[in-house]
């Protein structure tokens, strides 16, 4: 049995903790504390990491780690990205500039993204249709990055599973040379 590590990152409030909780077989480990920053409009925020566990049909296990969303915790981004086999970036489309938010994480994980597969999930696209998925694709194209991107509701287990499946499919492609 192998264990793989997948890292969830993205903006504060994008649903990293929720996404891990949606698919984790055991109660996820969270390190949320009271948020004292009124500008972020959220009662609690992750300052350490989230952790969940998922078993594949093959018996292999995936360890799901979530980063803090706020950029001042970027020291943890680098630590948590070590030994990960893939990265899932979640973006909250209801924020003021979600395209810039995405760029923050593309830049923050640039070194890891040069070698790791990635999938991007855009949340709240149903209630905030702009920017569109095409706008995100343009951002990625301008950076010469080809990354699967999809609309997700991280409260739905199947949406999170799809993101993970997308990562694994890329890994298979890389490993078996499709």
């Amino acid at each position, binding site marked *: 049995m*192998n*264990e*793989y*590590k997948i890292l969830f990152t993205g903006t504060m409030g994008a649903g990293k903790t929720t996404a891990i909780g949606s698919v984790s077989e055991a109660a996820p*480990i*969270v*390190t*949320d*504390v*009271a*948020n*004292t*920053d*009124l*500008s*972020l409009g959220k009662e609690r*925020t992750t*300052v*350490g*990491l989230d952790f969940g566990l*998922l*078993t*594949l*049909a*093959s018996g*292999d296990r*995936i360890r799901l780690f979530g980063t*803090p969303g706020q*950029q*001042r*915790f970027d*020291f*943890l981004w*680098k*630590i*948590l990205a*070590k*030994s990960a*086999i893939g990265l899932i970036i979640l973006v909250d489309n209801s924020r003021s500039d979600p395209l810039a938010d995405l760029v923050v994480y593309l830049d923050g994980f640039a070194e890891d993204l040069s070698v790791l597969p990635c999938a991007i999930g855009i949340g709240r696209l149903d209630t905030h249709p702009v920017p569109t998925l095409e706008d995100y694709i343009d951002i990625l194209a301008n950076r010469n990055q080809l990354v699967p991107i999809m609309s997700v509701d991280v409260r739905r*287990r199947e949406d999170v*599973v799809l993101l*993970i*499946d*997308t990562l*694994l*499919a*890329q*890994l*298979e*492609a*890389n*490993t*078996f040379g*499709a």
Partner: protein
Amino acid sequence: MKIKKGKLAAFFGFKSQNQEESTEQKSLPVTDKPIDFGEDIHTEQPAVIDSAIADSKATEPVAINSENLLEPSTEIEEKTVEVEEKATVADPLEVEATNTEFKMATPEPTMDYEHEEEHLIVNYSKEQLAVSEEKLEEFMRVCPGAYGVLISTVDGHELLYLVKRDIPVHKISTMNSSLLALGESIARESSQKLCQFVILENSDGRVVSLRINDILMLTCISSKDTNLGMLLSVGRNTAGDLMKILS
């Protein structure tokens, strides 16, 4: 619900892997190395400036310079004068502390993201902060090896701090909030209640973090000149006093 690895092969047009092939499959490029929390943490030194407490907003992080305490002001002056008088007691440790030049470290000028302290929900009066400063002063006097003590929010915003060395207060506040949260989570997962301290024991010093209340935490940084028991005891007493002051 289990995920089957080959399920999305068609989705991307990749070659599907069936069970027969799976016996010949290469392992995915995975390593399972332990996380090294000490690696690659970049600690740049902040600029050192002086600032008067009277000019500081109540919600801004405040650092104490021993000269600040003597500036003419109302209640703050009275309280700080009292501290100076206490410091003249013939206690060698206290006398040493009064001769120490405290420095203020700016909130990490090298970091390029926006500071958000003005949005913080913590909003204490100058009187509360002044009394809290006295407690930090007292901590530094009693612990001769201490060279930093910080009050910060549990999500990593520094509120008040006293440092004798150029240390990146902003980063230390942020990192220790992560550490304390992790420590509390580890305690919970280990079926242990009420994480009291998170202790970093290093070759030439110690860093101790503990909660003050639901939204504030205290970080004590010391060389080996203060023994651990002393650091924990004084740290706990200081946190208890601060809990009453900043409630």
